[in-house]
């Protein structure tokens, strides 16, 4: 009995971190209506940033958020502004420019391989950080402390982003644009600036996720690819554009990954995750918390 609870807790903690990594993706998808295939690479960039920040300055890993989040915001903002915006301008009348998927894939290939060239393929880990290997022991159960920190960060970030979108002017402008592009621009909102900001926020959230992962996960050039596909699955499960949905989707995946192996080998849980993904796509494509879209 203990086993299932212990696994479930690990699943929820890890899952909320997955949700945090997917949050940027769902924001970008919700506002710009495009799937950012470079998402995994952005996570990887965030992880390298966090790694080097901590290694060079010796500060506590979570303090690195102060540097990583704004840096990632600018990275995302300008990435959208310079590389992706021209497509939006060119395909003004298309509701969902699929060519953006292709451009973001190009960005993915470039980022991953430039990182390989610059930093080499080695696996790096934060060897001596205060969070490493810390476990909370409740009776027979072990709870990983870095994952606990990660879960709390995920919830706080989710609440923060939600508050931003509900209560601030910029946030409301972004929501307006995502619901109806033309109407929003009629109200004087600069559509492209909104996209830049939204992309920046998505990137910043991903940066925060990167900081949570670095204390207990390896950093290497292709680390993003693992989280990329998972991110898509989480985002669809939870509903595109829904912050809470991203967290919920992540937790579901985390639970399957942690509790599943008790009943089958770990390799089959992968197949189950894909199966669940397809089930949701067919039965309720808008996801658990998404709204029904007309697109």
């Amino acid at each position, binding site marked *: 009995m203990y*086993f299932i609870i*212990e*696994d479930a807790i*690990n699943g929820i903690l*890890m899952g909320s971190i*997955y949700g945090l990594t997917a949050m940027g993706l769902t924001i970008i998808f919700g506002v710009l209506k495009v799937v950012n295939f470079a998402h995994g690479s952005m996570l990887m960039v965030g992880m390298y940033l966090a790694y080097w920040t901590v290694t060079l300055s010796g500060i506590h890993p979570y303090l690195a958020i102060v540097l990583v989040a704004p840096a990632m915001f600018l990275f995302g903002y300008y990435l959208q502004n310079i590389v992706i915006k021209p497509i939006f*301008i*060119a*395909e*003004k*009348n298309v509701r969902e420019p699929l060519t953006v998927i292709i451009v973001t894939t190009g960005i993915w290939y470039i980022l991953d*391989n430039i990182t*390989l060239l610059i930093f*080499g*393929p*080695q*696996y*790096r*880990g934060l*060897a001596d950080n205060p969070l*490493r*290997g*810390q*476990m909370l022991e409740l009776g027979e159960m*072990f709870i*990983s402390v870095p994952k606990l920190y990660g879960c709390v960060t995920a919830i706080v970030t989710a609440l923060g982003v939600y508050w931003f979108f509900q209560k601030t002017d910029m946030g409301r402008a972004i929501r307006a644009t995502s619901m109806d592009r033309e109407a929003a621009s009629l109200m004087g909102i600069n559509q492209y600036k909104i996209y830049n900001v939204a992309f920046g926020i998505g990137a910043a959230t991903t940066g925060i996720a990167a900081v949570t992962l670095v204390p*207990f*996960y*390896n950093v*290497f050039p*292709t680390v993003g690819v*693992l*989280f990329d596909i*998972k991110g898509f699955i989480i985002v669809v499960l939870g509903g595109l554009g829904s912050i809470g949905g991203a967290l919920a989707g992540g937790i579901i995946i*985390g639970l399957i*990954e*942690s*509790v*599943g*192996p*008790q009943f089958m*080998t*770990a*390799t089959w*849980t*992968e197949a189950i995750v894909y199966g669940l993904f397809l089930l949701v796509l067919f039965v309720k494509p808008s996801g658990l918390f998404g709204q029904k879209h007309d697109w």
Partner: protein
Amino acid sequence: MKKGEALQALSPNFLRAGNSSSSKANGECILATQGGKTKREEPMRILRTFAVPALAMSMLAGSYATGHAENVKIGNIIPLSGPSATLGQQGKAAREMAVEEINAAGGIKSLGGAKLELVFADSESKPEKGVAEAERLINTEKVNVLTGCWNSAVTYPTTAVAERYGIPFVVPVSVSDKITDQGFKTVFRIAAKDSWWTRDQFSFLKDMEKEFGTKVERLAFVYENGDWGKGFAGQWKELAEKGGYKVVLDEPYPSTATDLSPVVQKIRRSKADVLMLVSNAADAILLTNTLAEYKVKLKAIIASGGGHADPSFLTATGKNAQYLFDIVEWETDVNKPGAKEANDKYKAKYGQNLTGEAVDAYVAMYVLKDALERAASLDPEKIREALAATDLSSGPGMIVGYDSVKFDTTGQNENASLVMVQVNDMGKGLERITIWPKAARRAGYTPVFPMPEK
């Protein structure tokens, strides 16, 4: 008819190959949405679209321009990018070091002092790229011999290509039994077959039980879900049955998993005595750290080289890896003349210790030199015969733990043997210490078995 006309109005022009009046209208519309590019920018666009094929053409021409020298060309197909890149790079470094030494000592004397020239090709760990590169190295680069490919999955089809052309192929590292069991005449493998690795792992275990008077009953098998892992696991199951052990866990896992705590939980709950692992670098690190975090109590952990032998493994796991047993071809403290010097030289040059795989690549170069000297010819058949007759037991290349390199009729190096190391601290920080076979054990060290409570 009306339906057809309506539909025609809806469909864009690019489905039809020729010009027509309706297409012109659409064409103008497209121009408009693209922001009204003017006629002046046409030449630029044409230039741009031709840049890529022009570049490709010039590269084609360039390949014909490379001249031929009087050297012996050795083609090497290894993973220089992709998931096994770190290991491919080590193989490259080891080969380069060996060839430098050989050339500095006068090259191949029976060929008039001909130098060895290395040509590298990136397999990206993908079989089809390995095959393509083999074709290219044989036909365009005109290499005299091939070596490679690290990943067994790449080595199978690539050796088939060499076999077809009759080009000798020396396999330094890939362990899969199948490689020498295919009946190919041109394949020569330096490393031990994977059935030997598993056999030795179990012999070691029995020896440890005897030496320390500790009984081992329950075994847990945790392995990466690829060719290598599954191959080992299959053999482990047979060996466990023969040895009278009970297998309490048989868990393949995806090497790319982002969280291995569920697997570790299963290990913990299986109450196994000994855990046997087959892992690549990232998951080896993750598993070791997670096992330590969950304070899993085991009598011993026996790894299978690969990821556990990767230089970045110790740096990334530190104390968590203490007391780990690992089986490898070679370790830096092996008791052979020249081994320490070679390792120091390599470390000074490349910043890391030699690994078993790197040593295999190093030895492969010396095996080739020896064969070329005896063949005294660049004819592939003569080289192949010379390789088949190899009995190399001395010389700067022989820093391996065993006595000589000798190929049996299937091309397998029959003397290849393995050593077991334990990760421990003998006062100078954590290092890998050779402990088995007992004759190879480092002086002054007694292995720790079973693992003490940490």
